[in-house]
């Protein structure tokens, strides 16, 4: 396979350069703080802080989720690498308005190690820090081992809800409570069909035979439930939903959800919409009401092919937070 014709400069400088570009995309709304944090300008004094983050290369998340009624800042690592602790610290310092900061990120070993160290450093400097880990990927561990689950596309509704909550929360504890609820009410499952590539090596992130797709595979190609034959959207959609419905969170008739159909990169909007059509029909059958729908490449892994379905169950409090407008490079709601 020939090296992909990526439109980049130094393959080792991609993360740094894309952050510079992202600041331009924010066009004055956010800035680059320190070596690798994107931080909102003009944060309201006293606001409870929300810091997200993780490895780069998954654009438009995480750093694209910084915005009004979204995250206050994002600590960004190199491609597929958690940000080092001092970048986390710089982000925390910039975001902190005196009332503490919530760290909210995907449950990956590298992120936990670095954010935890960053939290230690921040606490040493008198900044109150709490952490909520995102672990929405159902197939990555059984329900009694949630702390082993990965964070995948469900992070988008979770950060949206946490961001809305952060502008209203009276204190860090309340933000932790609401964010934990948003996390606990979110379930995702994905499928992968072709790898992305690492810019610095040009190498594919994993390999898959031509006629199979990975059910429940992670966004970097991590193991899932099974390799299954490539199949139609209408065959696949019920399998994915059954994995979510088979988990320990009850979805029953009358429940209201936010539905996200995410592309990992080169899976097209056409395909997402075809899957969405079937998912909606299946939810209708169960009497589950879709309050809002997101569809597109939100959580990607370079030009990887594959998609995921995420459901976030709303209660009255989450629904009110969901309906707040928000604005960012990754997601804007009027």
């Amino acid at each position, binding site marked *: 396979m020939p090296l992909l014709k990526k439109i980049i400069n130094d393959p080792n400088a991609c993360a740094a350069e894309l952050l510079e570009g992202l600041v331009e995309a924010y066009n004055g709304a956010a800035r680059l703080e320190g070596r690798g944090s994107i931080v909102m300008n003009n944060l309201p004094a006293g606001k409870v802080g929300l810091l997200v983050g993780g490895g780069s290369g998954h654009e438009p998340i995480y750093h694209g989720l910084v915005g009004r009624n979204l995250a206050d800042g994002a600590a960004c690592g190199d491609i597929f690498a958690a940000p080092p602790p001092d970048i986390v610290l710089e982000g925390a310092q910039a975001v902190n308005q005196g009332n503490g900061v919530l760290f909210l990120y995907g449950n990956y*070993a590298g992120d936990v*190690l670095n954010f935890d160290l960053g939290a230690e450093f921040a606490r040493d400097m008198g900044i109150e820090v709490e952490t909520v880990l995102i672990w929405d990927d159902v197939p990555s561990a059984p329900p009694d081992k949630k702390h082993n689950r990965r964070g995948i596309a469900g992070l988008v509704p979770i950060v949206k809800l946490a961001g809305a909550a952060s502008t209203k929360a009276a204190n860090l504890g309340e933000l932790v409570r609401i964010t934990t609820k948003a996390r606990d009410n979110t379930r995702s499952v994905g499928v992968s069909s072709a790898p992305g590539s690492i810019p*610095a090596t040009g190498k594919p992130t994993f390999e898959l035979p031509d006629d199979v797709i990975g059910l429940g595979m992670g966004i970097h190609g991590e193991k899932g439930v099974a390799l299954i034959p490539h199949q139609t959207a209408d065959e696949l959609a019920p399998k994915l939903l059954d994995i979510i419905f088979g988990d320990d969170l009850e979805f029953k008739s009358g429940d209201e959800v936010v539905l996200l159909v995410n592309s990992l990169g080169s899976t097209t909007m056409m395909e997402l919409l075809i899957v969405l059509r079937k998912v909606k029909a299946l939810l209708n059958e169960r009497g589950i009401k879709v309050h809002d729908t997101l569809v597109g490449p939100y959580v990607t892994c370079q030009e990887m092919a594959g998609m995921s379905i995420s459901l976030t169950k709303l209660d009255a409090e989450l629904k009110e937070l969901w309906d707040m407008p928000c604005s960012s490079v990754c997601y804007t709601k009027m």
Partner: protein
Amino acid sequence: MVLRVADAIIAAEDYLSEADRNLGDGDHGIGMKRGMLAVKEKLAALDGATPIDKIFQTAGMAMMSSMGGASGVIFGSFYLGGAKAVPGIETLDATSFAAFLQGACDAIMTRGKAQPGDKTMVDALHPAAAAAQTAAIHSLADAAEIIATAAEGGREASKEMIATLGRAKTLGEATLGHPDAGACSIAIILRTMADYIAGK
């Protein structure tokens, strides 16, 4: 010595990434290279009279703050934890080298909560640190050779382990047969140190 280690890891970039590709996300060599380039830069700024533990500490800080990923914290802790265990030493001998490795291994296991057998770099470092304790009666050069060999043995042994931590943990049995990428790095680091000490 720390500079030689940096060059050896940088030269092994592809090998380390390939090892990570089998089990993780294929970027271990990239991250280690990024860390070691930062190490070289920071060491170049030190003056000639810098004490040994300060050199280790500078290297650890450079890795910790430049690499990110799991291995940024883990390998940064290698030098940082080691440096803490040998405060103020003036020359490295077999005893202080053993103390260094024990400090490094303890720091990493505290940080990363990995136990021997979890298929991480601990599986190369832990036997190396243990070997260092018993080898402390030998000359530094002999001890370093014993240590490097123990680390390489640990790397080989990691092939037979099933990953339970890090990105590879969800792969389960599919990890059998491949050595852990971080264990490969530890083997290179300790082999390079032994070669340097032996004047090779």
